[in-house]
């Protein structure tokens, strides 16, 4: 059985804790990277991460893109929607198709 983790600033993630996900309140990128590696080693299938935190962990996100589990999904936090989550989807399209055809691309 796999667990679900939520990472980000405390205010953004405690609601998810009520649903039964495991919260990891972290805002420091270096510490978050360390924690993320640790989480990936353990039995987690999905890691929800706030966009604010994810934007500082681009290298880690790319690293876990190709591996099977965990799936790292960016979600907007209390600081608002930065569009970083959509960016990840766009990235997949560009990688597969060669150019962005879904989002009316600007690249």
């Amino acid at each position, binding site marked *: 059985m796999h667990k*679900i983790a939520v990472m980000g600033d405390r205010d953004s993630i405690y609601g998810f804790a009520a649903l039964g996900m495991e919260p990891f309140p972290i805002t420091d990128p270096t510490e978050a990277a360390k924690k993320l590696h640790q989480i990936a080693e353990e039995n987690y299938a999905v890691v929800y991460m706030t966009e604010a935190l994810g934007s500082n962990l681009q290298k880690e996100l790319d690293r876990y893109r190709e591996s099977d589990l965990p799936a790292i999904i960016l979600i907007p936090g209390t600081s608002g929607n930065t569009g970083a989550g959509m960016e990840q989807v766009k990235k997949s399209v560009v990688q597969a198709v060669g150019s962005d055809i879904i989002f009316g691309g600007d690249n």
Partner: protein
Amino acid sequence: MASTYVIPTRMELTRLKRKLVTARRGHKLLKDKRDELMRQFLALVRENRALRERVEEAIKAANKNFVLARATMSDEVLTTALMAPKQEIRLETTTRNIMSVDIPVFKVETRTADPNDIYCYGYAFTSTDLDYAVKSLADILPDLLRLAEVEKSCQLMADEIEETRRRVNALEHVTIPDTEEMIHSITMKLDEAERSSQIRLMKVKDMMLEKEHHYKEKLVERAAEKGA
């Protein structure tokens, strides 16, 4: 473009011809695989986009309530309220195979039988905004999990499509033309060798006949007679 030197023998020719057949078949199969992957991927990525828009919208609304709850409640009360979550979600993960890509499939299991069992606090000291926040998050939970599933699938498929496309291109633009070129050059060399040996044989035959029957001398004699 055949940069590598090949020994022009019949054995090599047979080998290359066989290689070309395999390369062509591989190319056709990989192309089919790429097209099907692409079709599936595009459908999936559209779903991904729609899901994401919906989820982001819902989380935004939930966060709004959450901020309100924080504003109306003291930090300690909020922390205590959410300290011991009653509910626990576990995922059973299996994989589904789409064109050799293993994409994850999640099956949700909650610890308590009632999935609506999300309020892990007494209502006495908390504000209703907290209830709304938790409720709206609980409502999008299925979408949230589906999003994780779909987004991960998209990432994995994008990877596979990229790889397949490279292989198709390598076969189409490098391996197949190169092999054709090599086959062509070997065929040419073998034909040339064959013509050369044919001519040599004809020449030898001429020389042998000449030696036996002295055609040339007779020809000269006859010409001399006519001239006389």
